[in-house]
């Protein structure tokens, strides 16, 4: 199983230029979405037929604090003029939507918030997602960024045949 991570505080713009570079929408994303986007580039960047539309790949994102860093940015904008561009990122699942759009994944996208990083629970939820008969693989993201300069960001690609 392929696993990747992004060290806390890494320069995400530099990483974007190295991994993608052709997707200016990246700069509009909140930090959580940037992390999910980059982890996915690391996981599937080399895949053959990478941008072929597909319904058989799920995107499952997990965090402890959802999108709280961006929630604060939106709240700051409320005092002046509430920003629609920030508001759309005040949902913990937008990162899964960004990954689906970039990669043309029309399968399941789900977002979960857990008290702690609990590998056993995450594995169980991922395994249960494969009950959908269409799903044959899943991008799994644990991305938690309470602040824009400090985070946990892990990703892995699970295939149906990997499950016992």
């Amino acid at each position, binding site marked *: 199983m392929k696993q990747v991570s992004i060290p806390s505080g890494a320069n995400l713009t530099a990483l974007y230029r190295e991994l993608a570079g052709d997707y200016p929408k990246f700069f509009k994303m909140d930090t959580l979405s940037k992390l999910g986007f980059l982890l996915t580039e690391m996981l599937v960047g080399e895949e053959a037929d990478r941008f072929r539309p597909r319904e058989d790949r799920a995107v499952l994102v997990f965090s402890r604090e959802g999108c709280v860093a961006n929630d604060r940015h939106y709240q700051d904008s409320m005092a002046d003029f*509430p920003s629609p561009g920030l508001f759309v990122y005040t949902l913990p*699942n937008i990162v899964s939507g960004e990954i689906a759009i970039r990669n043309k994944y029309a399968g399941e996208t*789900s*977002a979960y918030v857990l008290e702690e990083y609990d590998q056993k629970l995450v594995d169980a939820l991922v395994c*249960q997602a494969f009950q959908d008969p269409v799903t044959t693989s899943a991008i799994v993201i644990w991305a938690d960024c309470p602040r824009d300069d400090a985070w946990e960001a892990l990703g892995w690609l699970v295939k149906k045949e990997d499950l016992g």
Partner: protein
Amino acid sequence: MTGVGIIGRSVVTPLGDTPEGVFQAARKGCSALKPYTDTSEVYWASRLERKGFGGDSFFEAVALEAARKAVADAGIDPSGAGFILSTIKGDIEKLGSGDVSLAASAAHIARALGVQAAPVVVSNACISGVAAVVQGMRMIRDGAFRHVIVVGAELQSRFIVTGFQALKALSQEPCRPFDAARDGLNLGEAAAAMVLTALDTPEESAGWELLSGAIRNDANHISGPSRTGEGSYNALRAVLPFVRKEDLAFVNVHGTATRYNDEMEAIALDRAGLLDVPINSLKGVFGHTMGAAGILESILSMEALEAGIVLPTRGFHELGVSAPVKVSACEQAVRGNAFVKLLSGFGGVNGALLFRKGGAR
């Protein structure tokens, strides 16, 4: 595969606190929508009375109230059950002054209920309620739990209202789902809960059964639905093989009354071959209750099917979508013992649930 039944249901809404009472109110054409003027523009919303709930968090109190009532309705011991909270923004009104963690809210509610399992929060934008029920179904089929308590709750706040205003998504009048003159949605507050259970024998399937559920992404845009209804159609396509067309009494759609959502759903229903099946939207009754919507609207749809009807679509008068969908303007008698609940949301997500009523309850 293990069947999944629904043995407990509850609602906490401005129109009442019992599924039967709220169903009768919706049937009579009541609505909880009222105008509010606490932001720069007027907006209509359906809000809960803050009185009568103890504790630090009104959000946790209403979610707990719904969960307790569903557990009592089911008559189960919650200690061994799974627990899922569906919400989008939880306690967001405390941002900057208190704890806004969705996971902490879920843990607090689960502990107060006496649940021992680690709680799971499903926060999948406006389809959270449907996605949480799908997750509960999977936990039971997996054998992880015999019972799963699924609670959906949402409160409105300046944070959410100003955001939807910034997106120009709110109507300044009561919303008009699928109507030619529709111009936006209304927000709503509610909590609702279901207890799902494993059905091991055919006799146990005499009550409500959750036959299937699916989640699909449009892969198109983060804040606008697909013009072709791709994800909604794919979610429908995933659940429809589990029901005979003649048994499908109605589809309870998302029907937010935004131009784009309702048009998208009409296209998806057309593509799925459902133009002759009655559809309805409950947004004119409760507004868009976000994390509660999937559970609240499913419960009201169960009540309706038990009465042999599809509820009216309050606010609808003249069809304003490109496909000739069969919007139920008034209460209508229906045939069939199954219904589909549809939702769509930001992030391009779409969800569908398929429920079937057994012989007796």
